[in-house]
Every structure is written in structure tokens, then in C-alpha cells.
């Protein structure tokens, strides 16, 4: 178990290293001259020289990268060009709104996915299977930003008590997290249904039935408990996708979170802020994946022995 955990942490570090390399490329390698990007096209050569000296742009690339990495490890992600504030400060301020949205959406998608998978698993039959497959494929295919917009349309017309955007209490979480959750819920329910179909054929299910347990009990305590495990791993892997959805959902609902911050950064070509949000999101994904690994080990004792 300890070996496994060390391996996972090492992989997390590798992911972050990769993310730092990519963000470094975004900031210092791709733009023809970062100094011009900062000072503007009309800056005089003297100013540009000073900026180059300050940022260490006159040094070899690998030296620049190591310095950048060192600063990032100390939590210093530079200053935003557009907002003239420290990037880490901005990120910390926006984090709670995104965390609330992500946790709500994740919970909701797992709940709805489990429910859908159970219903599909219980009432198996050719016609219904095809219907459920179509439904889940449709949910997966819906663009999240459109679903969010349609929710806004519906809320504006019929559900007057729901806020139309912004982060203001629990009620404001309903629409964005539902919009974000439905796609993954469709995916999870299909996976769960497939797992259930596999588990139901196993001997211990037959034993449980032969003991005279009620079908509901067999389904919930025996089949589901075993079929749901892979879903945990899947949800962890899906976290990166969730963050992509977060960017779009936050833009639709004017949600004051990291996704909206990243969108503004891209819109203003605010390079330090772009780098910071990409790097921080990668950190979130790495942490989420580690938590899922731990959760999995707790749920499935077999992995603890390995």
C-alpha cells in the first residue's frame, strides 16, 4: 500500500512538472518576445532591455525555467498584467466558489449516475436498454454551455425563485451544478449498468438469492456494492474533464470562480494569470486523484494488501 501511494505521489509530481513545462512554453517560448508582450509594441529599446534583465530573459532557457519552477514552488506565480495583483492571491480568492461548484456537481453526477445505472440494471430488456443507451449518449453529447443557457432560459421564464447567475448562497448552486453534472451522470449510469450486468452473473449473487433475500436487498447490498467500485476510479479520472466543464459553466452563470478567472485571463492575454490558473488546476487534479486513490484503498481492502 505504501509503495502504491509513493508511486501515485511520484506520478502526481510528474504531472505537475509537465504542467509547469507547458505553462513555461506558453509564457516564454511561444511569444516571439515576451518583453514586447509586456511593454507593448511601442516600447523603446531601453525599456525592453530593462524588462528583459528584470525577468531574466537574457539568460538561457533552462535557467529561466528553473527559476520559474523555484518561484512557483514558493507559491509565487507572478503578478497579473491586467489586474496588477499577485496571481496566487487572485486564485486563492476565487477558489472557494469553484470548489463549491465542483463538489456539488461531482456529488450530483455520482448520485444521478448511480440512480440511473440502478434503474437500468434492474429493468433490463432490449428495448429499454437501447432507450437508456440513447439517453446516456445524448446526455454525454450535450454541450454544457448550451445546457446552462437553456437552464437560464427556463429559470427566467418559469422558476422565478432561482437566481440567474452569480454565487449567492445554496440556491445559486442548483442550476450550474446540475448543468455540469448531467453529462457525467449519463456516462456513469451506463458504466454502472454494464458493471451490474457483469456482477449479477456471479456466484455470490446467486447464493444471496438462494438464501431468499429480497431482490432489492441483493441489488443494493450485494451487486451495487461491488459494481460501484470502478465508478470511483472513473470519477477521479473524470476530474480533469469536470474542470473543463467548470470553465464553460462559470462563464454561462457569471460564477466568480477559477474558470471565469481563466477566461478573463485568456481574454486579456494576461500571461501570468493564464499560467497560474493552468498550473493551479493541474494541482487540483493531482490532489483529487490522490484522494480518489485513498478512497479506493479504503473501499476495496484488496488494494491495501497489494
Amino acid at each position, binding site marked *: 500500500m505504501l509503495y502504491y501511494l509513493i508511486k501515485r505521489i511520484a*506520478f502526481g509530481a*510528474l*504531472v505537475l512538472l*509537465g*504542467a509547469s513545462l*507547458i*505553462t513555461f512554453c*506558453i509564457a516564454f517560448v*511561444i*511569444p516571439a518576445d515576451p518583453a514586447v508582450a509586456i511593454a507593448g509594441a511601442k516600447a523603446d529599446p531601453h525599456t525592453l532591455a530593462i524588462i528583459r534583465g528584470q525577468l531574466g530573459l537574457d539568460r538561457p532557457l533552462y535557467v529561466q525555467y528553473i527559476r520559474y519552477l523555484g518561484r512557483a514552488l514558493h507559491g509565487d506565480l507572478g503578478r497579473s498584467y491586467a489586474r496588477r495583483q499577485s496571481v496566487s492571491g487572485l486564485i486563492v480568492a476565487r477558489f472557494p466558489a469553484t470548489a463549491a461548484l465542483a463538489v456539488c456537481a461531482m456529488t450530483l453526477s455520482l448520485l444521478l449516475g448511480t440512480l440511473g445505472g440502478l434503474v437500468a440494471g434492474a429493468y433490463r430488456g432490449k428495448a429499454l*436498454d*437501447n432507450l437508456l*443507451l*440513447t439517453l446516456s*449518449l*445524448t446526455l*454525454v*453529447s*450535450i*454541450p*454544457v*454551455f*448550451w*445546457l446552462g*443557457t*437553456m437552464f*437560464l*432560459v427556463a429559470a*427566467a*421564464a418559469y422558476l422565478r425563485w432561482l437566481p440567474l447567475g452569480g454565487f449567492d448562497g445554496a440556491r445559486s448552486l442548483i442550476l450550474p451544478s446540475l448543468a455540469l453534472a448531467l453529462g457525467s451522470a449519463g456516462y456513469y449510469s451506463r458504466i454502472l449498468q454494464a458493471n451490474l450486468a457483469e456482477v449479477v452473473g456471479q456466484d455470490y449473487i446467486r447464493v444471496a438469492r438462494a438464501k431468499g433475500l429480497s431482490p432489492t436487498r441483493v441489488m443494493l447490498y450485494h451487486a451495487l456494492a461491488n459494481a460501484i467500485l470502478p465508478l470511483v476510479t472513473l470519477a477521479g*479520472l473524470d476530474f*480533469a*474533464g469536470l*474542470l*473543463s*466543464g467548470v*470553465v*464553460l459553466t462559470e*462563464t*454561462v452563470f457569471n460564477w466568480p470562480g477559477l474558470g471565469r478567472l*481563466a*477566461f478573463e485571463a*485568456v*481574454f486579456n*492575454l494576461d*500571461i501570468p494569470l*493564464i*499560467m497560474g*490558473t*493552468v498550473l493551479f*488546476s*493541474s494541482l487540483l*487534479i*493531482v490532489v483529487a*486523484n490522490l484522494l480518489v486513490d485513498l478512497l479506493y484503498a479504503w473501499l476495496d481492502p484488496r488494494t491495501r494488501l497489494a
Partner: protein
Amino acid sequence: MGRARLNWLEMVGGAIALSLVVLALFAPHIAPHDPTQAVAQTFGDPGPPSLAFPCGTDQLGRDVLSRLIYGARVSLIVGVSAMAVAMTIGVAAGLCAGFFGGWTEMVLMRITDVMLTLPGLLLAMAFVAILRPSLLSILLVISLVSWTGVARVVRAETLSMTSRDFVLAARALGASAGRLMIRHLLPNIAPTIVVMAALSTSGTLLLDAGLSFLGLGVPPPTPSWGRMVEESQIYFRTAPWLAFFPGLAILYAVLGFNLLGYGFLRRRRPQ
């Protein structure tokens, strides 16, 4: 690929994909109006759906239906070519990793895993913004973040083949590594590649739609579905149909390729 008869998933998905190709190819003949010209005298207000304009007109008086039909062009071009580039990278990486093993596999798969873990849309946003949005930059960036899943599947498939008799026989006959991979392994993983191509296209279409919704799509006046949703956001109270139809078009296209992918998949693993 087994039987010649199509299953219903392939039929519906294929019909959708085909309809998109027809719309894109013959847009000028099918679209009732010019997508970039004002055809309705609405003085800055979106017009509701009517007999003359089935999907309504937008804030500039342009016919939404015609814009949707022309929008199929950009979506298909970006979606399909990004898929093709992503498939090329993914198949090459997966094939090499599975075939050579050892260090090659180690390095290629760690790169794949790292890329798979990073937030795709966020990376794509950052790259497109820095490179400036254009057909080429969008296409390349989307394929750059989309090849990883393909690489993993192809590697697994290749691994399951390398010790099979026909590979061993070819190897014993002195076939070179390149010949083994291209003439012997590739044809045998082709069915998987076809499945992945269909599923990847739905992914690249969604990513392209997301980018253009964020204002990082192919620049105007080229009609694009994602940007149409974005532009109509401010009218969600007064003109909800304006956002409804372009989103539906995205859903239609993405669902089509997903159905096609699952149809191919079912053909390989009948339930």
C-alpha cells in the same frame, strides 16, 4: 468488421454524419439566404421563428437557419481534421509504445498519462489565445489535447497482438520493425481505430464548440455554432430561440458521431 448488415446505432449515426457532410458541401445550394447578410428588417432586434425564417433571425437581421447550415462547414472541417491529426499522433505513439516496450513505452506512456491528467479545455484556451485564433491554430491545439485516449487504447491493443502467431511468424521471416507495425499490426487494430475515430470526432467537435463559445473559435464572419450560442446569451430572456437552435445543432453532430462510435463498438462486441 464482421457482418455487413448495419445495426441501428450505425444507421442513425451514419445518417447524421452523412447529413452533416451534405449540408457542409452544398451549403450555398441548401441555405435559403446568405449567412452573413441582413435579410430581415428588424432594426437590431432578433426576430422570432416564422414561416420565412424557421429558426428566426439574429440581432443583425441574419437568417439563423442559413447560418446553422453554413456552420456545419467549420465544425466539420475543424472536428474531422483535428480528429485525423489526433488519431495520427495517438496511433503512432500507441503503436510504438506497445511494439517496442521498455524505455520507449515508459517515456511515451508517461507523457500520455500526464497529458491525460491535465485540464484539456484550459490548455487549449491558453494555447489558442497565445497563438491567436485561426483555423490552423484551433485545429492543431485541439488535436494536441485529444490524442491521449487513442494512444492508450492502441497501445493496449498492440500489446495483445505482439505475441500472436502471425506477428511471430512475420518476425521469424525477418520483417523489419516498420514493416511489422504497418503491414501486420496496423491492419489488425484497424477496427479499434475506426471506433476511436468516430468517438474522437465527437470529442473534437465539443472542444471546438466550447472554444468558439469562449470567443476562441474561427474568427467572424464565418458562422460557427459555438459562437452563435455565445452571442445570443444576452438575449436569453427576450429571444431564447437564438441560443436554442445552434446548441441543438452541436448536440445533433456530437450525438451522431457518438452513436456511430458505439455502433462500431457493438459490432465488435455484440451484446
